[in-house]
């Protein structure tokens, strides 16, 4: 019973802050694109040759982020190998 009250108080505090953040989001379906996204959608076909704008962003315009993320995946698998050694 005490645990239930504790969890309810924690959730109340977290959801108050979340609601205050949610009121700053623009209304659903009325996203105004900033200039960077406009440039990516219009020029993805001529610059990269790929018809998929999301693919062009992930592998070409922001390729260094993808390289860092692959390093992180690699490091996670090696970390798992280290944690579960048995000798």
């Amino acid at each position, binding site marked *: 019973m005490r645990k239930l009250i504790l969890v309810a108080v924690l959730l109340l505090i977290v959801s108050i802050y979340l609601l205050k953040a949610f009121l700053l989001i623009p209304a659903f379906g009325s996203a105004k694109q900033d200039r960077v996204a406009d440039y990516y959608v219009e020029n993805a076909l001529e610059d990269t040759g790929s018809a998929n704008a999301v693919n062009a962003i992930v592998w070409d315009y922001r390729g260094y982020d993808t*390289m860092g993320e692959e390093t992180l995946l690699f490091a996670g698998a090696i970390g798992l190998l280290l944690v579960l050694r048995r000798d």
Partner: protein
Amino acid sequence: MDNLVKIIGNVLFPFMLVFGFYVAFHGHLSPGGGFPGGVIIATGIAILVIGNGAAAIKRRFRDGVSSAVKTVSGILLISIIILGLFFRDRLLSTQVFFELWSGGFTLLLNLAGGIMVAAGLGLIVFVMTEDAE
């Protein structure tokens, strides 16, 4: 129950492999790309491990193959990114839009990224199913 899972897993595995490579190859023409394709291939390997048991599958791979595949694909990814700095215009002029061999370096990068994700997830599956206490 054991035989049923094993038989269905063995039948389904080549189809999942082909579908995973299809999704990874056509990353520049339809939604998907490198990462979902790699995950599909790794799920096929996981279904094999569930049906047959981990010891039987590990006997068919030599020791350290999964780490070697991951290292090679990591080197391939980084080298393709660095090569793309220099040879981009020459590659782009030999291609036609909306065909399979288009998209400059995104086709090769999708393949390398898909192989790396599949090898990483396969390594995680093999490490977690070691038969020990």
